[in-house]
């Protein structure tokens, strides 16, 4: 059946009509192939305008629509809806921009702008004739979740999902829940001790009905959003379950700075976490010097681990509280007490008598001692003086480093790691707890060193994002996706390598290897199309034929 195309040109008040001869464009449009109706409106987007388009669709039996007006980026949904309301598929619509891309940028060239508008309309008509109806399909989502890692981030995310009524598996490789926090000596900014804190959270986890898998290791994860198959080994026993979403909360480890400042050589040189354990047991540490940024913010490991300054401030305070006579000096390069709460703690720490001195990367402190480390000397940056600091205990603040399991998990989940080995989120600014791969989320120190409130916020955020497909029980797939012509595909795999979303895979059809697009994962960018020499993969709504029909309008005479 021949298409029956309707073309509607908008005046946009005077915005288009002042530059483009709208009547002339209408006259021209009516001469184009398959155009059964061409018309104009003062404001196509107004109630009247949309109403008249709908009426004409019905009256003239129009089955494809071109609107030439402003920009599809704001107005396309409106006209698509109008098409749908008038009974034609919303994807049999093409938007031609003759305002932003014509009348407004060629204001002094009425004739040329009119000619250009005609060509643009012709291109739109050529394309719309070749468009095919599209459906936004749906793919089901298993209403359960897997959370990997049983620290405070993992527990929080699991509780949040379980409280919303979803079956949630919490998978922890150790024998108990609590991650790094359970080993802390104190918790800022909280009244409760870390053990109480973790215990409360464990109880909440159990009470909310989370299925806890301790001493468990991930063996395999296959699938995509809505439909992951997870295999774990729990105490050596294999277990399989299906989940719709996966949250990664595998945390990070404290760097053991072997060889730095006599660590490993002198018994009284310890890390912050070792100090926490001593303090928790009530051990005395005496006069203490803390060195910040040990193994961080230096070539080889450039990043700042974000939380160590606050840890030092917290522990310095705890030492003074236990041993008021001890002297505590923190030697640092910058104190990272960002935000209001942290800055207040830093201020209080100084008021409480903790001394803060600066060193530079170029001139690091030096440790001296025999059986035990006894003192450090450093060039104090602000004073530009050499200072010697004797101590009983030297505490090294070391950064959190990525969990060594990240690499393994990364491969199973098909998600990227950043240059430092932490998980790389979908967008550093606006999608901090998501991956580019749908249905997989990230929170806590596995993404970046974070303090407890930040981990809890991120865990909540990941749970919120994960709950969206779970609540819906389905994911809507894009209508504008790639599709493969399996009769011509050679299975060369160019498209697979090109796809940033891992949406394409090779399947065997009647003994032939061909590419297949998983619609639940395809985002419709069409990058794969550009890689297919065969033309076997096409993007719906932007097919080779459709784009070429537009190009042809420019190469042929008017």
């Amino acid at each position, binding site marked *: 059946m021949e298409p029956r195309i309707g073309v509607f040109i908008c005046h946009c008040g005077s915005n288009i009509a002042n530059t483009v001869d709208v009547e002339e464009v209408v006259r021209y449009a009516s001469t184009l192939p398959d155009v059964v109706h061409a018309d104009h409106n003062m404001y196509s987007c107004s109630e009247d305008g949309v109403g008249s388009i709908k009426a004409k669709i019905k009256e003239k039996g129009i089955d494809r629509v071109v609107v030439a007006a402003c*920009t*599809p*980026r704001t107005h396309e949904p409106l006209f698509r809806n109008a098409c749908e309301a008038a009974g034609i598929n919303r994807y049999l619509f093409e938007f031609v*921009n003759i*305002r*932003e*891309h*014509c009348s*407004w*940028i*060629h*204001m*002094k*060239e009425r004739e*040329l*702008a009119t*000619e*250009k508008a005609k*060509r*643009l309309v012709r*291109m739109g008509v050529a394309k719309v004739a070749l468009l095919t109806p599209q459906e936004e399909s749906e793919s089901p989502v298993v209403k359960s979740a897997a959370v990997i890692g049983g620290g405070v981030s993992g527990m929080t995310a699991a509780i949040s999902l379980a409280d919303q009524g979803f079956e949630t598996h919490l998978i922890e490789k150790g024998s108990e829940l609590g991650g790094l926090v359970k080993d802390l000596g104190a918790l800022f900014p909280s009244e409760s001790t870390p053990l109480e804190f973790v215990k409360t959270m464990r109880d909440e986890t159990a009470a909310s009905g989370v299925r806890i898998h301790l001493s468990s290791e991930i063996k395999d994860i296959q699938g995509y959003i809505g439909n992951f198959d997870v295999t774990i080994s729990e105490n050596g026993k294999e277990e399989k379950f299906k989940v719709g979403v996966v949250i990664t909360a595998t945390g990070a480890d404290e760097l053991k700075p072997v060889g730095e400042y006599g660590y490993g050589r002198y018994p009284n040189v310890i890390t912050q976490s070792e100090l926490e354990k001593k303090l928790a047991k009530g051990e005395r540490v005496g006069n203490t010097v803390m060195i910040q940024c040990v193994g961080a913010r230096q070539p080889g490991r450039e990043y700042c681990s974000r939380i160590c300054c606050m840890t030092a401030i917290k522990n310095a305070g705890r030492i003074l509280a236990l041993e008021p006579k001890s002297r505590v000096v923190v030697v640092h390069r910058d104190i990272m007490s960002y935000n209001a709460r942290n800055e207040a703690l830093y201020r209080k720490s100084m008021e409480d008598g903790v001394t803060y001195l600066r060193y530079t990367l170029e001139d690091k402190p030096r440790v001296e001692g025999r059986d035990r480390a006894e003192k450090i000397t450093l060039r104090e940056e602000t004073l530009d003086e050499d200072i010697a600091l004797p101590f009983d205990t030297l505490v090294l603040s070391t950064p959190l480093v990525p969990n060594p399991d990240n690499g393994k998990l990364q491969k199973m989940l098909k998600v990227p790691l950043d240059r430092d080995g932490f998980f790389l989120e*979908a967008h550093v600014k606006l999608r901090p707890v998501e991956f*580019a791969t749908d249905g997989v989320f990230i929170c806590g120190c596995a993404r970046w060193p974070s303090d407890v409130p930040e981990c809890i916020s991120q865990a909540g955020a990941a749970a919120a994002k994960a709950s969206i497909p779970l609540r819906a029980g389905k994911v809507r797939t894009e209508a*504008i996706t790639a599709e493969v012509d399996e009769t011509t595909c050679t299975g060369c795999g160019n498209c697979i390598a*090109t796809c*940033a*979303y891992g949406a394409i895979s090779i399947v065997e059809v009647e003994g032939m290897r061909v590419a297949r697009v998983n619609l639940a994962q395809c*985002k*419709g*960018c*069409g*990058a794969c*199309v*550009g*890689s297919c020499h065969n033309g076997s993969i096409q*993007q719906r709504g*932007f097919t*080779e034929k459709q*784009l*070429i029909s*537009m*190009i*042809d309008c*420019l*190469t042929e005479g008017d």
Partner: protein
Amino acid sequence: MPEFEPRILAFCCNWCSYAGADLAGVSRLQMPPNIHIIRVMCSGNVKPEYVVKSLVEGVDGVLVLGCHIGDCHYISGNHRTIKRFALLERLMDDLGIDKRRIRVDWVSASEGEKFQKVVSEFVAQVKSLGPNDIRRDAA
């Protein structure tokens, strides 16, 4: 003889460069009417074959505009674009074809002025190159 008015095609990605073109319009930045935009979702969708075809069949110049590297709405579509077109440009050079009829550039959604600049420069450049000598009947 009237001045040569080249016919120019621009592929713009939906998220950045098309939006940049919109902003140019909203800001009423004037530019030569030689340019005709085809919207694609991502510059990674633009096959170099389209550009070759356009030039061979008589379009005088082709712009391929995407998001800045790092800003691609689809993570890395524009990485593909730049690689493909870098190769095409070298190939054209090897064949003794003037690659200045093609320009790949990045325009963000807030760079209305850059859009204007790229278009104006490109139109001027193609004008200076004269009528398309790649087209089949020009040979």
